[in-house]
């Protein structure tokens, strides 16, 4: 049921994540962070998230690209559930047209 390599990866993730949770409390609480470092730390999660979906933007399938643009517009206006529905429906329709 539990693969040893999956388990090792999950445990390593858990340790690293917990270190980020206690790290700020233990080591940064008596320090004032420079505005520069604060800005960097604030933009890091967004950099990672957009990196991970970047391949979708260069998949080479026009249908997927159009669906992605529609989804991006939806994401700026709608909450999660309607956005996901827009994404699935637009990709489904566009792929079957092509």
């Amino acid at each position, binding site marked *: 049921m539990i693969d040893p390599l999956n388990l090792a990866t999950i445990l390593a993730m858990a340790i690293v*994540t917990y270190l980020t949770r206690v790290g700020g409390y233990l080591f940064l609480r008596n320090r004032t962070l420079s505005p520069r470092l604060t*800005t960097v730390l604030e933009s890091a999660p967004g950099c990672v998230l957009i990196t991970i979906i970047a391949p979708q933007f260069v998949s080479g399938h026009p249908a997927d690209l159009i669906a992605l643009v529609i989804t991006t517009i939806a994401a700026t206006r709608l909450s999660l559930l309607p956005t996901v529905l827009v994404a699935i429906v637009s990709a489904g329709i566009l792929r079957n047209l092509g």
Partner: protein
Amino acid sequence: METATKDPDASEVAAKSPSLRFAWRGSESWRGLKAALPMMLGFIPFALVLGSQAAQKGFSVAEVPLMTGLNFGGGSEFAAVQLWTSPPHLLLIVAITFLVNSRHLLMGAAFAPLIRHLPRRQAFTALFVMCDESWALGLADARRTGRLSMPYYFAMAFGFYICWVVFTTVGALAGPILGDVTRFGFDMAFPAVFLVMLAGMWKGPAAARPWLVSLVVAALTYVFIPGAWYVPAGALSGVLAAFVLARPA
């Protein structure tokens, strides 16, 4: 009724009223749970998508709550599942997890004055269940009342925690029933979730410039270099861009 005895407000109410149910309804724990409820409902679709995608990537039903229960960080779990292979690239996934969750460092530092007075074990438990939502609600409530009410915080934070672990597991159970998600465009749900998360982090076009750098570098790397190199290339170039762009005036 452990919560009622621990909680000064609730025991006050209990002293006035013999009804324990009334004591619970007036307690700080109940207030925390009520504050968390709308956001808990918002967790559910995210959790279902994550669980079912993890199942598609080969996670067993036991491995999904293992990850979401031990790691408890939605953004990093979506990233990890997206990058998951068999066997997984441990170092890549751990590095990405760290980058996605590095914001916790700032959150924990901001949280420190509120939990400094607690016994160590309680403080470390409070940090274990600190997520974007529990942190924001806890900080906002402490600003209003002058201190962080621990029954309020723990009820709310564990509400989020249980909701996340339970519904990611439900997603993992339901995933195989949905079948191949790439048919009909179900796979587009994944970038949709990421785009909604990014929209939630949006702080104006200037703050988003590093994201654009990440997107372009990651896309180019993906096209020209095989493998998962696009991940460190995109993430690190964005962080570097943020550092350069944020230079002191």
